[in-house]
């Protein structure tokens, strides 16, 4: 989230789309309810009427996967009716930047497309630069090649008629939503978006988010109280996990995983450190080498020296142009390319799209280590449906681990707040905390490398591994390492620091090997002041619910990021009633400002040479309305989900995202065109009572009592068509698999009128698995396709094609 949970209460208009917040983040509704108490309007757009919809002031539906059409129509509405926040858009976003004449868009494709590689040459999306190498700007926003004019042209095609035909949303509903939300374009109004997997789990997932980010920028909703782009994370600590590089493409703190072509530390830093010629751009990522070197020092300690590139050669590299995402890993596993697999705190047999492929992939391993708290479909894959243990060679180990309340550590929530948690009880029996398991595992691995050598022992033998106290894993040691230390006596910014003391914040990290930091973003979380994540001061001094002394958030405890955009160019808050920061004439007061530089203009309206543009994480300091870095285009464009109920796209001749890649094993079956065998749109989602694949919740009797079985929701017309009554058992099938479910025939699903035909949708929660309970049903992911977003590879589990029939028919 750019903002945080409590800040939702500051909003005037809350859009919940691509999320069912009341269902899956019920505590967030405390803040939504508070906002509504103060007069905020709640808008909910969802293919089905959910628990969130029941609380909304305005509800309407749309076909799964058509969000870009819906939101593109909103952009068109905002621009056509001039409802955008002019000063904000002109000065804080790249709407004023002028594009080179190489840029164009035609019939669903941007300039630079290579049909052979199905990828773009992004040099076609570059900005026109002046003689100093700074992007040319037109603050009047009139230049035909300025981003705003190109944006207008792009979304002029998203008329109400076209949008309604694509989404199935009635025109009057579209208008109502657009009107209500666009009213937050005023300086003292804030609109916020709460979104989740309903937006991300698509082959256009990233572009879905981009569309909303553009809307938020047009309306001046970034950096302000009650605004922002707010992802509701799906696990209590997934934010922490992604921050600490759970994913293959990053190092901790969103540094990049080196490519094979980054043959030295210098080459690596050069490649990934953005530069700017504009002295008014802070270009905060320009500090990249300080963070990468500090990270290497945390990894290898004293073994990392300037002479050996701080151990850069010991870090794994990825092949250029290759993807190692979840979908790619399971594809390789299915092809028999993996010997072993640690399924650590996860249940791929149920959680991954195309679950049959994943289950069969597990059978190709030599060994599998499953670390979890309960028996699950992954560790027990070998005795699952369709499996013959006699034919499976995989040796499976189950390591029981402790649950969160049986160990100490931190959890980072969606709002970036790192909150320290304490141990309440001892783990039962042989269950151990993950930290202890990792420590013991690595100690043994290192011993083996010492004894036997191995292909490349250096990284293993040189790894700094001092995270225990009294032989036990100590989260405090890890937390401190993440923060980072001064490794020798130094003077930074005129202050003296002693060797072995904790670095106060990332502003003090160095690229010369004199500092360490396991994750630069978290530098300040645990410093000489103490464990800031453990702070529990419930007093809010800000008036807007910042609670700055409750726990600690990154970066540097800044609660609302991009807050330099919450003020006008003189440093006065756009909204005097809910200021985030304010310039006193000498300094900023309020939240931690996004840099202490003075406002853009002096009192006499002249440009202050000491200022910096507000969006400090972009090389040119301006927010990206035009996004030149994404795989599938600088402006979001509507394409259908890979599997869709229509054969034409009214907006272009490209039905699908032209940069999407498919997998090619026999287990990868896709419907590239409409198929009468699978005529209904399928979607998956969650319920309040269960969590993820249900590994924890299906064993909890009270929760299971509430939601005992896999169900399939459908509209009354479809049910009548198929002779299905409420509570009948049905079979839902896709080209990839099938599941048995209990039908819930409901008015909350409605058939949609799409491009002249009627489209039915069915939906299933993905919380179930064959291990337990016996008649609970299996994973809805047996139906979903192994195809993902071209930027993130997140699977498209929200829109695919299925058939449904009554069991026994």
């Amino acid at each position: 989230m750019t903002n945080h949970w409590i800040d939702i209460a500051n909003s005037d208009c809350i859009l919940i789309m691509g999320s069912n917040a009341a269902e899956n983040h019920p505590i967030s509704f405390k803040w939504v309810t508070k906002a509504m108490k103060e007069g905020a309007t709640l808008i909910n757009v969802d293919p089905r009427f959910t628990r969130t919809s029941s609380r909304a002031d305005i509800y309407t539906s749309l076909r799964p996967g058509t969000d870009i059409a819906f939101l593109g129509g909103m952009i068109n509405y905002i621009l056509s009716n001039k409802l955008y926040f002019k000063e904000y858009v002109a000065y804080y976003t790249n709407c004023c930047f002028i594009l080179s004449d190489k840029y164009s868009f035609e019939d669903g494709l941007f300039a630079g497309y290579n049909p052979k590689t199905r990828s773009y040459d992004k040099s076609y999306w570059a900005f026109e630069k002046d003689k100093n190498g700074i992007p040319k700007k037109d603050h009047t926003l009139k230049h035909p090649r300025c981003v705003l004019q190109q944006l207008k042209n792009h979304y002029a095609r998203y008329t109400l008629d076209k949008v309604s035909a694509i989404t199935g949303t009635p025109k009057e509903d579209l208008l109502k939503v657009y009107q209500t939300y666009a009213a937050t374009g005023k300086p003292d109004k804030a609109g916020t978006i709460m979104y989740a997997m309903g937006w991300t789990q698509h082959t256009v997932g990233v572009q879905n988010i981009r569309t909303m980010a553009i809307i938020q920028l047009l309306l001046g909703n970034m950096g302000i109280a009650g605004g922002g782009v707010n992802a509701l994370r799906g696990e209590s600590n997934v934010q922490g996990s992604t921050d600490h590089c759970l994913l293959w493409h990053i190092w901790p703190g969103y540094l990049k995983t080196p490519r094979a072509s980054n043959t030295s530390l210098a080459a690596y830093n050069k490649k990934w450190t953005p530069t700017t010629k504009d002295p008014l751009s802070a270009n905060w990522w320009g500090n990249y080498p300080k963070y990468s070197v500090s990270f290497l020092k945390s990894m290898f300690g004293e073994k990392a020296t300037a002479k050996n590139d701080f151990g850069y050669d010991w870090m794994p590299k990825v092949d250029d142009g290759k993807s190692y995402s979840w979908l790619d890993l399971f594809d390789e596993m299915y092809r028999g390319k993996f010997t072993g697999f640690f399924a650590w705190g996860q249940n791929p047999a149920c959680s991954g799209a195309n679950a049959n492929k994943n289950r069969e992939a597990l059978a190709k391993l030599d060994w599998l280590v499953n670390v979890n708290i309960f028996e699950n479909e992954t560790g027990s894959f070998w005795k699952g449906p369709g499996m013959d243990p006699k034919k499976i060679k995989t040796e499976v180990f189950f390591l029981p681990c402790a649950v969160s309340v049986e160990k100490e550590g931190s959890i980072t929530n969606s709002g970036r707040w790192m909150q320290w948690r304490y141990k309440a009880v001892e783990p039962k029996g042989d269950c151990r905390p993950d930290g202890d398991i990792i420590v013991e595992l690595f100690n043994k691995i290192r011993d083996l490398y010492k004894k036997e050598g191995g292909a490349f022992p250096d990284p293993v033998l040189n790894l700094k591994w001092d995270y225990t106290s009294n032989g036990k894993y100590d989260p405090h040691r890890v937390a401190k390492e993440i923060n980072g230390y001064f490794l020798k006596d130094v003077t930074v910014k005129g202050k003296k620091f002693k060797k072995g003391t904790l670095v106060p914040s990332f502003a003090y990290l160095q690229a010369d090997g004199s500092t360490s930091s396991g994750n630069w973003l978290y530098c300040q979380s645990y410093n000489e002041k103490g464990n800031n994540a453990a702070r529990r001061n419930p007093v809010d001094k800000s008036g807007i619910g910042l609670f700055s002394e409750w726990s600690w958030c990154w970066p540097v405890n800044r609660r609302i990021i991009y807050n330099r955009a919450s003020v006008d160019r003189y440093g006065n808050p756009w909204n005097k009633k809910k200021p985030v920061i304010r310039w006193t004439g000498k300094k900023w007061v309020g939240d931690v400002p996004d840099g202490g530089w003075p406002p853009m203009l002096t009192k006499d309206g002249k440009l202050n040479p000491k200022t910096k543009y507000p969006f400090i994480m972009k090389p040119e300091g301006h927010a990206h309305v035009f996004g030149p870095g994404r795989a599938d285009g600088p402006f979001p464009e509507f394409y259908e989900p890979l599997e869709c109920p229509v054969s034409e796209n009214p907006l272009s001749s490209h039905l699908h995202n032209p940069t999407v890649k498919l997998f090619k094993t026999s287990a990868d079956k896709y419907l590239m065109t409409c198929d009468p065998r699978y005529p209904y749109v399928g979607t998956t989602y969650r319920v309040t009572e269960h969590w993820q694949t249900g590994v924890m919740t299906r064993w909890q009797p009270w929760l299971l009592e509430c939601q005992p079985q896999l169900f399939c929701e459908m509209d009354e017309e479809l049910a009548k068509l198929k002779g299905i009554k409420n509570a009948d058992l049905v079979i839902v099938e896709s080209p990839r698999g099938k599941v048995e479910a209990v039908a819930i025939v409901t008015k909350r699903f409605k058939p949609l009128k799409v491009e002249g035909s009627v489209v039915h949708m069915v939906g299933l929660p993905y919380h179930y698995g064959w291990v337990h309970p016996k008649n609970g049903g299996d994973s809805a992911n047996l139906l979903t396709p192994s195809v993902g977003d071209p930027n993130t590879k997140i699977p498209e589990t929200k829109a695919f094609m299925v058939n449904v029939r009554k069991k026994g028919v």
Partner: protein
Amino acid sequence: MAGKSFFIDTTRCMACRGCQIACKNWNQNKASETQNWGSYQNPKDLDGNTFKLVRFSEMEEDGKIHWYFFPDQCRHCLEPPCKDTIEGYVDGAVIQDKDTGAVLYTEKTKKVPYEEVRDSCPYNIPRKAASGQLVKCTMCVDRVSAGLLPACVKTCPTGAMNFGDRDKMLALAKKRLAELKKKYPKAQLLDPDSVRTIYLVIDDPQKYHKFAIASNDRKGISRKLAMKKMLGPARQLLKPGLLG
């Protein structure tokens, strides 16, 4: 009037079932093996192990979909009909706690015909536990007497569940009703003068739950209870000790 009350604002309820589970947790009530009977609501009804049940009702009117949630529980009536019925059989089987007004069943209810008691309740609340004792919401009187909120109230994230001194809860209920009446002319409080668990709804109570509100034409009042009601005050006078 003294004692405590619940104020349940159904417009703030999103059926998260935190209350249903918290009640089970505090009372250490078992879960039963259920099936999906075509609804999110489960168990289907209150039972010997379910004292708090979130009821789901969906309907469509004038092109609008409504999904009403009703977190059902004992009303802790000021003059509980169940108490009358039970005391027709056994004295001292029902206690009305003098501090809170909570209506509490004791072990002695094992000796009372269950259906008769249940049918005498306008809200269809009393159930029978495996032990044979009659059971229902206890207002978490053990928590309340220790200065804590009932488990369901503590858990509720949105402020649908409220609890406190009766006069404060009535004031809160009336204030909220006035706010909602503007947008929802059918908004009403359900039997606020005769119960301690006061619900606020924005539509016909029947749309939420058959027994949401006490209706005059309820079935199943036994002849015995009807007789008792007739003789009521006289019966009190005939109790030993009262007249000397």
